């Protein structure tokens, strides 16, 4: 098993290096930091633009490979380079990563847990009214892009505010600026701000997972071992929970691991729409500012998370299924 995992790990390492290099090459050639500096008012002199670009390792007259080498050398010391405003990228990264993770973790875990629960319940009640309603609902949700869900929620919150005369649910930012009070007040404030963005992220996952979970659960429901479990005296509910759901969740585990990219893409929209200063909003901002080093840092982050979750899925799979190891 260790050999199998080591093999996977080295493959992922190669993949990560290739992906990061590709990301660097694309960002460094497609984005144009030079125009960003040249567009400044008053217009800086040619030599000063040149000097600034070189200092930030953004000069497009240096070959890409050389710039990448410089950047990778810094990375080995935990340095992600400097932003276009000449601040360390790691500062932004460190601040924004927690904002995003809060949203990403909560949104994806909620989507998973609720999706599995709804899917399993729906399968048990196949073709009853509740199953049909849930099917229709999940189809509608699957057909609504995340940004549209977020916009609907935000418009709803604005309408509620206009109707009530004061803000019912906050729809901008992740905390009330200048809030006084103890830890409890701060936590409540955080939770309230998390509400709408989390819902908008979780709904998509919920719809997808519930469809798949319903499918895998239906396969399990007709199985012999479930009948056996009931025959030996388990109640229907206990048999479903202990033998049915447990088996039906296994095929989903790989899906959870690889869903990260989709959730991150969703978070880009959610963060931008709800004014969260997280990784997703940072991406849009740095692309518009031609900020190569920040864009590459975000790329590095997503690639690393995707591969880490892929490795986790491999480990889990190998632990559960002995055939994989050989």
């Amino acid at each position, binding site marked *: 098993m260790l050999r199998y995992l080591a093999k996977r790990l080295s493959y992922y390492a190669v993949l990560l290096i290739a992906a990061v290099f590709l990301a660097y090459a694309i960002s460094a050639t497609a984005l144009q930091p030079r125009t960003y500096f040249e567009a400044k008012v008053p217009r800086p002199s040619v030599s000063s633009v040149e000097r600034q670009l070189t200092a930030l390792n953004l000069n497009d007259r240096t070959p890409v490979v050389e710039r990448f080498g410089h950047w990778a050398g810094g990375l080995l010391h935990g340095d992600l380079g400097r932003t276009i405003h000449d601040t360390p990228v790691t500062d932004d990264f460190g601040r924004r990563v927690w904002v995003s993770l809060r949203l990403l973790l909560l949104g994806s875990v909620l989507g998973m847990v609720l999706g599995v629960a709804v899917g399993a319940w729906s399968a048990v009640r196949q073709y009853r009214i509740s199953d049909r309603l849930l099917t229709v609902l999940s189809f509608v949700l699957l057909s609504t892009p995340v940004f549209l869900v977020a*916009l609907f929620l935000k418009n709803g919150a604005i309408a509620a505010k206009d109707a009530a005369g004061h803000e019912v649910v906050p729809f901008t930012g992740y905390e009330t600026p200048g809030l006084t009070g103890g830890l409890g007040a701060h936590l409540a404030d955080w939770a309230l701000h998390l509400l709408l963005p989390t819902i908008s992220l979780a709904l998509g996952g919920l719809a997808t997972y519930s469809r798949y979970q319903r499918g895998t659960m239906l396969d399990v429901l007709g199985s012999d071992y479930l009948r056996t479990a009931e025959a030996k005296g388990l109640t229907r509910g206990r048999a479903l929970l202990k033998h049915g759901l447990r088996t039906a969740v296994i095929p989903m585990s790989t899906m959870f691991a690889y869903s990260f990219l989709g959730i991150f*893409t969703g978070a880009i929209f959610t963060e931008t729409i709800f004014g969260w200063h997280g990784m997703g909003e940072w991406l849009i901002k740095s692309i518009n500012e031609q900020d190569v080093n920040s864009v590459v840092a975000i790329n590095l982050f997503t690639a690393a998370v995707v*591969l880490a979750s892929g490795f986790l899925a491999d480990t889990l799979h190998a632990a559960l299924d002995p055939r994989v190891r050989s």
Partner: protein
Amino acid sequence: MTTPIPTEKRPRPAGRGRLVLSRLLAARGAVVGAVLVLLLFALAFGGPYLTPWDYATPDFSALHQPPSAEHLFGTNGVGQDVFAQTVRGLQKSLVIGLLVALFSTLLASVVGACAGYFGGWTDRALMFLVDLLLVFPAFLVITIVSARLKSAGWIAFVLLLALFNWMITARVVRSMTISLREREFVRAARFMGVRPLRIISRHILPNVASFLIIDATIAVGGAVMSETALSYFGFGVKPPDVSLGTLLAAGTGDAPVFPWLFYFAAALLVLFVLAVNLIGDGLRDALDPTSGASPRRSPRRKRRP
């Protein structure tokens, strides 16, 4: 191929096409979806003739007007007819969705079939490419590159979307090809000296066609969703071109006050993707004999009321 020896006249058994069609018609969702898609296409391409207004020409006597007989979906802040704009945007989004699904499915079938059929280093190299593109957030690359493609217009955008939309399909095609490769008819063709590319096009691809059709259908919906999302943020279709995404972007700020600027486009978007998904789901049941949801196979299924 040998021609079957004609025996006495017998009623022809139902062909596969008939079977699939009858199963499809039995699935109510798929029928509803197909009707909806047809209606939306009719609206997208016939709609411009229903209104005297052009999508770009402003009517200065009607600014921010709610829907009326003159302007079916109302007007926006500069007096442009929202119905004309929505219809035009729907048209663009539909065309983009269809083209992206077509290109990405083509790419996926070629790459997947080649990787599966040739195996060895071809397989390894192509699968590395697939993994590499899967690690990359497609959104990220599209947003970075799209700024440089402004002049190339929406066709370049279609190609870009297709380029990041084929990987998972290719993986499935690959694994299907690997098992097909060992089947007798493929072996027979190989031993007869048929060239590999011909085997792939004549024997492999027709056998994965069901999967490809289902996948392409669902890809249309996905492509339209990506298109609108990217256009919403200004990375896809760009003004003066209109798509559902640019309309949503323009209307979202005013949505609480002037809802017609936002909700018509939003509703049409959801309706179209929903219809496509319903067709895809129905097709899966009709074409895929292993899917448990097919009416005749599932003993668990109760009679419809």
